[in-house]
């Protein structure tokens, strides 16, 4: 399985990847990107099975990335993992085609539960 983790914070990418391993995805190939634009380019070239993405990022935000992906007909499973979470953001995320929006901080159990929806 190939998972793309997109976050402008290297520390947060490390935490998401740590949680992926704890959730049983230790064998997955994990790719990283530090903004939505690089995330989009990586998604096009690497065809990941799952994208875990932050919301606020430079160059291209997470929601812009998701909309661009879906506009290209790419239906890759996509989940937001973000420090900022409002009901409006959740609605926007789901309307744009995300499977979930998981707010930081999250427990390993939360992470497993959300990933079970898509992987």
């Amino acid at each position, binding site marked *: 399985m190939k998972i793309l983790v997109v976050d402008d914070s290297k520390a947060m990418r*490390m935490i998401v990847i*740590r949680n992926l391993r704890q959730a049983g995805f230790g064998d997955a190939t994990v790719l990283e990107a530090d903004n939505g634009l690089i995330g989009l380019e990586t998604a096009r070239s690497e065809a990941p099975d799952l994208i875990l993405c932050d919301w606020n990022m430079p160059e291209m935000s997470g929601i812009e990335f998701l909309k661009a992906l879906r506009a290209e007909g790419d239906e890759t499973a996509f989940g937001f993992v973000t420090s900022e979470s409002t009901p409006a953001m959740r609605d926007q995320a789901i309307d744009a085609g995300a499977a979930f929006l998981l707010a930081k901080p999250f427990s390993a159990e939360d992470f497993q539960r959300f990933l079970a929806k898509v992987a």
Partner: protein
Amino acid sequence: MPLIPPAAKIPLPIQEVLAEFFIDLLGKGAAASKTRELKLQPQTESKYVVAVYEDNYERVGAVCISELLMAAVGGAALVMAAPSILPEVVAAEKLPENLLDNYKEVVNILCSVLNTPNTPHLRLAAIHAFPDEEMGQEVWEVLDRPSNRRDFEITVEGYGGGKLSILAR
């Protein structure tokens, strides 16, 4: 032109909520207990880190003060850096840039304990490693006369800890 609503009071977390926050974020044991007030004066150099949270109208809603060691612990534990670096930080009385960057992520996510469905949404607006007048009058007003404050001693398994205070407008 839409009216700007009056600034609302921000509810502050209790120690159990803060402990759970650090446990979930850092993936290790953590505890929070009440402690004495942290008093901040201008030009205290880098012994404190001040995080400023603003609402959608760019008004300061809350401020978080962290002792230097607390910021170092948070920044190190977030990326599972070796705790052995902490005495050097304390001796130097200065937070290295990498730990400050990591701690910025900690206080960014800490905002989640300040946001409720019934109060204005806050987000991290700035982080100051050198608390001084450049933080702005509004920040100093909250520091000097908060409507509410909670002061905590935070401990992170394997790292130790320090003091952290959250002050509401």
